[in-house]
């Protein structure tokens, strides 16, 4: 009787550990992409300054590109920042508690955070969907399609939610 159960717990644990590992890897991958986007945003500004002040030519796409690239970087890196405990929180009260009350408090806080991230993911995908199906553009002289600018937010918020689940599982383990 007990053997299958131990077995199933063990396999459940290994599934959980596997999930956490996958999420941790994804968090690092998106963080690398974010770092590249941040660097590209900086380079676009440098290119713009050079074109405008040194060559004296007109600049069209750079401010918008930088804005979207860096915004994308910020949102894509959120899972990594969550994983490394970079989102500031006040843990004085939960730290002072022990046992069950502490666990409940931590779990509640995590669930609040998770619901926020899920709401953001939902809203973001809806925005991507709208921007894509209705062919919205940014309405500027460069006028690129809007959806590629919003997509990183949807991806970032979704991975952030999944990462949050991983953090909850990690904390419970």
């Amino acid at each position: 009787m007990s053997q299958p159960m131990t077995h199933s717990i063990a396999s459940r644990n290994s599934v959980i550990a596997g999930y956490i590992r996958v999420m941790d890897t994804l968090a690092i991958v998106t963080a690398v992409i974010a770092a590249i986007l941040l660097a590209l945003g900086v380079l676009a500004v440098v290119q713009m300054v050079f074109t405008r002040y040194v060559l004296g030519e007109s600049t069209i796409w750079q401010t918008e590109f930088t804005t979207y690239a860096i915004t994308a970087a910020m949102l894509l890196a959120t899972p990594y920042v969550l994983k490394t405990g970079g989102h500031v929180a006040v843990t004085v009260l939960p730290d002072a508690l022990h046992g069950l009350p502490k666990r409940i408090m931590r779990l509640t806080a995590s669930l609040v955070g998770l619901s926020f991230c899920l709401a953001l993911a939902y809203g973001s995908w809806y925005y991507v969907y709208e921007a894509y199906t209705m062919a919205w553009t940014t309405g500027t002289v460069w006028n690129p399609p809007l959806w590629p600018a919003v997509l990183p937010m949807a991806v970032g918020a979704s991975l952030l939610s999944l990462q949050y689940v991983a953090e909850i599982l990690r904390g419970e383990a």
Partner: protein
Amino acid sequence: ADTTLRVSHQFPGGKGDVRDEMVQLMAREVKAADVGLELQIYPGQSLFKAKEQWGALVRGRLDMTSLPLDYASGRHPEFSATLMPGLVRSHERAQRLNDSKFMDMIKTVINDAGVRVLADAWLAGGFASNAQCVTSPDTVQGQTMRAAGPAFDEMLAVAGASIASMPSSEIYTAMQTGVLDGANTSSGSFVSYRIYEQVTCLTAPGENALWFMYEPILISEQSWSKLNEVQQSALMAAAEKAETYFAKEAAGLDQKMADVFAENGVEVVSMSPEDYQAWLDIAKKSSYKTFAENVPNGQALIDAALAVE
């Protein structure tokens, strides 16, 4: 219980800006009509940001707004025609435009999106610069200019200007910090945002106003249909008064701008017919052409506007 409609705009509140005055007037009229309707005004982007207002209106998150329609051109490229260089030229013609096939076509797009126009308003505007007076196209060469929408951006870029995009509320700071050498916006905004403190030369609309922008008062169809008939007609009556008020003020705004700028030691010039034509030639090769190519009924819209006497 009373119905409260939330009205949002980006202009300074209670400081005499004509668009703020229009909605204030409507709020007073509706209240006086005593039909259980109240307008709650959120000025100066205190609820939605300038460019978010259209989206909010379409979905019924926002009830009413006074909006530069071109701000929504990313969603409805047709709206670029409402800030197209040289398409209007004078206030008299703006009045005739309101009842033309051109405006019917624009309003069809507005209505199809789930929005209704309560009051029309075409604001004239001009250019201001702290580098060089903007008259003929070659005067913008090398200047970093702020333009209000893609059509003007493109024309100015072709004429040799650098473009920096921003809402009108940011022009003052950008001029102060030297990010901009010049800007173009409406007469109302030039005065409201005290741009005269930052520039040396103003190109007033005058006889040949290159710059006109459609900034109507809009209501969400969802909010409109929730009103009862008495409330609807009270709102329409108020809107009519606001529109009349605006029509009376419109030309005066340009004079007021010229006066205020002159009082503050700013040189005031206007475009000659030759300057105007030179700009129009550039615009036809750039913004008009792009518009006709990229917007499904773009050419038809331009033709309809130009057909107005």
